[in-house]
């Protein structure tokens, strides 16, 4: 069974997505073999839902996007595995269900289940949230944000990352 990638996409958006091409200069996939046993590995999560810790972190900059519609906040937020209440800053999807249960975007409870069952070695101490709308800000995301995220994951001994776009 193969899913329909565009089942829930507005029809007029289809030309923007159905023939996507890699960024200029990228011809080969980035590939890192996964060498550890999953049962010994530390797994981190990355969400593009624009989550930040309520009252403890600056939310993603939505006013900037309102002023410049082709721009998206390219920064990131580090979320401890047990991160407490979150706010969601993302103007392109309805936030209701993620705010009702942030496991919809950042499934730390399911990760705990996999650790408890022995399927996964351990949950990473911290996960990462970015805001997925990155049109004009993509260069900052690639040159600054992505590198900071890689450094974080290396520093905390993360073996694998699951990135879940919203």
């Amino acid at each position, binding site marked *: 069974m193969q899913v329909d990638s565009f089942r829930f996409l507005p029809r007029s958006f289809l030309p923007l997505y159905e023939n996507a091409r890699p960024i200029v200069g*990228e011809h080969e996939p980035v*590939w890192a073999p996964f060498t550890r046993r999953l049962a010994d590995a530390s*797994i981190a999560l990355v969400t593009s839902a624009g989550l930040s810790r309520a009252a403890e972190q600056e939310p993603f900059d939505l006013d900037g996007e309102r002023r410049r519609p082709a721009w998206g906040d390219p920064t990131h937020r580090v979320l401890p595995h047990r991160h407490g209440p979150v706010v969601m800053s993302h103007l392109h999807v*309805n936030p209701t269900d993620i705010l009702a249960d942030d496991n*919809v975007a950042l499934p730390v*409870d399911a990760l705990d289940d996999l650790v408890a069952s022995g399927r996964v070695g351990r949950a990473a101490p911290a996960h990462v949230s970015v805001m997925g709308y990155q049109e004009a800000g993509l260069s900052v995301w690639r040159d600054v944000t992505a590198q900071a995220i890689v450094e974080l994951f290396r520093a905390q001994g993360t073996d694998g990352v699951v990135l*879940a776009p*919203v």
Partner: protein
Amino acid sequence: MPLTAVQLIAPRVVGVEFPFGHPFGRPGDREVQRTVLETAVTVLAGAAEPVTRVDIDIEWPQPRGEAYRAWQPAEPSPIVAELLRQRAARGEGAAP
């Protein structure tokens, strides 16, 4: 959108046929959340070659039209609002 991820040569891809804003399913549905995450880590650890795609056979439990309307924000995003303004200026009526 797993097809898009493959076209962008993502190394490992897990596809779900869920509305935008719901990569791991519905709120409170721990079983589906776990199924999707377990599939993801299985593909992460077990894919033998780049651009491996595995799709999950779970049907979204809501009529398509209802789910299509539900995932969209209450107001168009700034870029969509801008596109709508441009279309209106050209005398085109279709919404994005």
